[in-house]
């Protein structure tokens, strides 16, 4: 029983720490994105709240918390209120299987630096990511606004399309590691990161990940200049904030996944493992911001063509090639 309680406490502490870091990081990712994007566009970015605008995320949070939470009269109230929660929760839950170190020894007890090591960890990520689609689709539908509905439909279609490419691009990685467990995958990269042997998978995964998290150039569901703000047009206050939280947590997850699956995860010299993971995540995020600062939004048919006609065949070919090499 005691053992069980200690284990439970450790789990809760891990959860707490991870959640806290995730949320803080999400807030500061916004700051980072605005700042970095501004520099890419020869601007300053936020520089009024605190030094270098460092207090901007806090100001934003306070603003969103204190703003009125409006539910449109014609909206489907139940689903309207549920949708942002779905987006945020599914995003947060995904991090459960990402390892941020090998293990810690405290008072003679080995504590693995991962919340849970699922033997189907990768599939778990996909499962939650596919549930995240509901938040977008339902939010768009429940708002009872044509812009929102269009945004919601676009979002759902885009996310299920790119999920395939996302999944297929990872099959070679799983084949190399021989496991769905992310901990095992990281362990399999002890010698060299998979990006070296799987550059195609890396590129396909990066592109699909950006599409999956609805980032420019794949931000059709919220396309400001055509749909207002797409599926979250009608949202305000903290519910709007939850959508954004979900989006930025997603960004971190994808950063973490890229780091874990292709860049060797927490592995690295000198610095402690979580710091390495953090640095790699930030690096991936910066690349994504760079993409955002460079590329224009795709057209809808281009988006679909890219997904179905380029990425999926490429991923399939990659699987076959990898399989062939492995067999040989």
């Amino acid at each position: 029983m005691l053992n069980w309680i200690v284990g439970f406490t450790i789990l809760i502490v891990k959860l707490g720490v991870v959640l806290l870091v995730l949320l803080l990081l999400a807030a500061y990712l916004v700051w980072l994105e605005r700042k970095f994007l501004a520099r890419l566009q020869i601007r300053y970015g936020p520089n009024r709240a605190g030094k270098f605008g460092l207090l901007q995320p806090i100001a934003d949070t306070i603003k969103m918390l204190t703003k009125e939470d409006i539910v449109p009269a014609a909206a489907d109230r139940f689903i309207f209120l549920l949708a942002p929660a779905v987006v945020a929760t599914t995003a947060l839950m995904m991090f459960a299987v990402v390892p941020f170190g090998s293990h810690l020894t405290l008072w003679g007890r080995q504590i693995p630096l991962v919340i849970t090591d699922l033997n189907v960890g990768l599939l778990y990520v996909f499962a939650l990511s596919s549930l995240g689609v509901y938040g977008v689709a339902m939010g768009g539908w429940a708002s009872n606004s044509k812009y929102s509905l269009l945004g919601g439909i676009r979002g759902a279609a885009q996310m299920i399309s790119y999920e395939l490419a996302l999944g297929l691009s990872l099959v070679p990685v799983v084949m190399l590691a021989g496991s769905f467990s992310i901990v095992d995958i990281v362990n399999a990269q002890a010698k060299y990161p998979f990006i070296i042997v799987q550059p195609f998978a890396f590129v396909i995964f990066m592109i699909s990940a950006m599409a999956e998290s609805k980032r420019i150039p794949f931000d059709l569901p919220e396309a400001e200049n055509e749909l207002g703000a797409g599926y979250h047009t009608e949202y305000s206050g903290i519910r709007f904030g939850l959508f954004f939280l979900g989006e930025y947590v997603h960004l971190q997850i994808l950063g973490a996944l890229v780091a874990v699956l292709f860049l060797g995860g927490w592995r690295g010299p000198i610095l402690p493992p979580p710091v390495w993971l953090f640095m790699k995540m930030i690096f991936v995020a910066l690349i994504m911001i760079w993409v955002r600062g460079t590329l224009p939004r795709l057209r809808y048919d281009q988006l679909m063509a890219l997904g179905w006609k380029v990425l999926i065949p490429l991923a399939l070919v990659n699987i076959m090639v990898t399989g062939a090499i492995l067999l040989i």
Partner: protein
Amino acid sequence: MTLYAIIFYVLAAVIVVTTGLAITRRNLVHVVVYLVFSFFGSAMLFYLFGAPLLAVLEVIIYAGAIMILFLFIIMMVKTETFEERLFPFRQWLPVALIGVVYLVIGALIVSSAPGNQVMLKIALARPEAFGEYLFQRHWLAIEIISLLLLVALVGALYLGRKKAEDDI
């Protein structure tokens, strides 16, 4: 009662309630949402029984793919918005009859099955074991189904293509 038992009953209750709600609601989007909850609950049950792969597959395939397609269709089609009320009696009657039949058969099976007193041993279905089982024992069936799907895919592509040319 162990913690697992409590979790089991809670999950079971959630599944029963959400499924019940799903079949009684008339707002189709709500139905889908309740059904997704139900599937999610079933997935958790599978996980509880030690079948994480099954759990994940349940979520990915049923909740993540099939239901989202349903939702997609429902959202695209403008349906009448119904009041939240039960279906009329004449629709209920056959359902209730079939339900009663199920109930009786279920009760008979449970009462007459020989293994109902024996605890099931926890089947830790690892993905490798699952894959080996599938592709070594049933490879022929899998290949036939794959072929079938391929034919269907090609057919669909052909139909789509023809249509597109007509449009031009």
